């Protein structure tokens, strides 16, 4: 506790007097033209594609079939699902060669298995950010942190109606300050590095491949 007192005392003794005004971040981002839903969807897809993700726009009725086809294409044998309605729906549509299970055990009970045997993880993003091609995951009981991280292929379903234009819009629109999960993760592509001679390589420590399925909004033409 002594260090704490010393550090705070030193800072208090030196802290500038007089009020300083809080910078107005909202004012800075206000007044930009709003993007339409179609524009946001297009931008999200374009940015993610530029970041080396494989993006498909899918329908509400048929998305599970599209995901299943992708699983077959990639030869996924063991798939790990986020628990919930979407996971169950997908489980019912799987190709013959794919086995699926929900992430339902504490990590330490099967760490080696998760690291070594699982080919792909399937998650539903909470929302997305068009400007940077970003998928937001609120980790919690139904969204384990490692599901989107350890398996070499990550498949994400995201609802087009949940796409925000910018990070600022998402943070404000979702009121993050009031409802921070234990771990909020934003994902903008497959894992990568340029640490060897500035040469870009994918699959550094996280998933080498990212597949994104954007659920076309209700009433939107195909």
């Amino acid at each position: 506790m002594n260090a704490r007192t010393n550090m705070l005392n030193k800072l208090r003794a030196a802290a500038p007097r007089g009020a300083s005004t809080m910078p107005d971040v909202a004012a800075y981002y206000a007044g930009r033209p709003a993007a339409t839903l179609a524009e946001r969807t297009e931008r999200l897809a374009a940015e993610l594609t530029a970041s080396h993700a494989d993006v498909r726009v899918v329908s509400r009725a048929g998305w599970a079939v599209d995901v299943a086809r992708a699983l077959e294409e990639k030869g996924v044998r063991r798939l790990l699902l986020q628990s919930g309605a979407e996971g169950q729906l997908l489980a019912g549509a799987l190709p013959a060669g794919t086995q699926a299970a929900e992430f339902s055990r504490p990590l330490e009970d099967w760490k080696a298995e998760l690291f070594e045997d699982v080919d792909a993880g399937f998650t539903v993003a909470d929302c997305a950010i068009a400007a940077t091609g970003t998928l937001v995951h609120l980790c919690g009981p139904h969204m384990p942190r490692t599901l989107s991280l350890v398996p070499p292929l990550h498949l994400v379903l995201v609802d087009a109606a949940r796409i925000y234009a910018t990070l600022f819009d998402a943070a404000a629109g979702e009121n993050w300050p009031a409802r921070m999960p234990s771990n909020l993760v934003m994902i903008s592509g497959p894992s990568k590095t340029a640490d060897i001679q500035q040469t870009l390589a994918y699959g550094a420590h996280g998933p080498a491949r990212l597949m994104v399925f954007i659920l076309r909004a209700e009433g939107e033409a195909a």
Partner: protein
Amino acid sequence: MSKHPMQFVPSADFKERARGALDDDKLRKSFRGAMDFLQAKRRNQFSDEEERESLRDLGSAIRKYALANLPDLLEQLERKLTANGIQVHWAETAAEANAIVLDIMQRNAARRMIKGKSMASEEIELNHYLGEHGMECVESDMGEYIVQLAGEKPSHIVMPAIHKNKADVAKLFEEHIPDTPYTEDVDELIQTGRRALRQRFMEADVGLSGVNFAVAETGTLWLIENEGNGRLSTTVPPVHVAIMGMEKVVAKLDHVVPLVSLLTRSATGQAVTTYFNLISSPRRPGELDGPREVHLVLLDNGRSQAYADEQLRSTLQCIRCGACMNHCPVYGRIGGHAYGTTYPGPIGKILSPHLLGLDEAGDLPFASTLCGACSEVCPVRIPIPDLLIRLRNEAKRNPNETVATPLRGQGAKHSAAERVVWQFWSGAFKSPKAWAALRWGATRLRAFTPGAQAGWTQHRTPLKPAPRSLHDLLKDKGQPE
């Protein structure tokens, strides 16, 4: 892993090491290539000049606000984190910080640590300390891992292995990682690194990380990365320890929004990095993964000295993007190791004197042309050249002089002889008579100026007074005295 001892190089031999670096062709090529690449990438990200400048204004205002309220924000951060279940520790010195981390490991009967990238842990030389206490620390950021295998230290704060080329890495991996044939294929090299570290993530008892921003409002640690090793280090081991310089706190979650955009665009020319990892609590009931314990170590280690001085306080606005080094003509030629400090380049020159003292920092505040490229690109508008001049003055100041905010190592470069010369000059300038006498003498005795003039003539022709002074020439033209 740590067969090779880490190198601890005193910053004192800066000139010698700089000389060596200048003569090293391969090193110069590595840095030139990297600098050109990073400069171009940053330029592409900031094509809209108006947007860039207004964002820099905002970023600077946010950091200034945070510093103006630093003690309050740190207390708020501590309150929020504690309420969220994260344990907060305060460390005045590097030694205290190291002891805190060791204690956490011992209490958890831990032996193996996996590390995400953390410059603060480099600053306190944590690996070395824990190694001495029988702990095994493995760096997992690809660049840090390469540097650790080589028994070196990072040469850049964002890209630690920037001084190495493919062939260097190929040789290192072949030598240190079992069953690894020599290859210069970068994809293969990265996959080799991935495989080698996978097991380490699984086995680690503790994960250590740095912090990019800490949000006081919500009690959130905001971490930025591309590889996923940061997420693994903070998620898979049962205990996570984060360490950060105490200046990295900001007031509001939305304050990070412009800062993070400035950071990734300035650092690597990316609009965003692959992962933003916002940690607000350890594993909660019902959750299936995540660490059971999370700790945050708040580090002073000399920062309060910079904080105490109104001008030098702006040093702490830094968001560690590395843009100043990427654009520095000195750094670009000598690379990061020549500085001999954890933080090289312009930011290192203004920060190290507080961490180490002006005496230890030696030549660093002087190793600049004051060209201003650093402050021109700094996303939070730190006036780096002004701070360098100030630090030079403090280094030259008489060590016994009493000043309002004294710096450790004040007067390290003080020289009585130099002092006398300057006193002579200022005396001569102040008195018109003395000045006239000096002019008279200098123009007539110019034949006697020595040919060898200390350091000056090493690379330049000797200085010699002109046959007639400007003053006299103007007088000839009818300019009144």
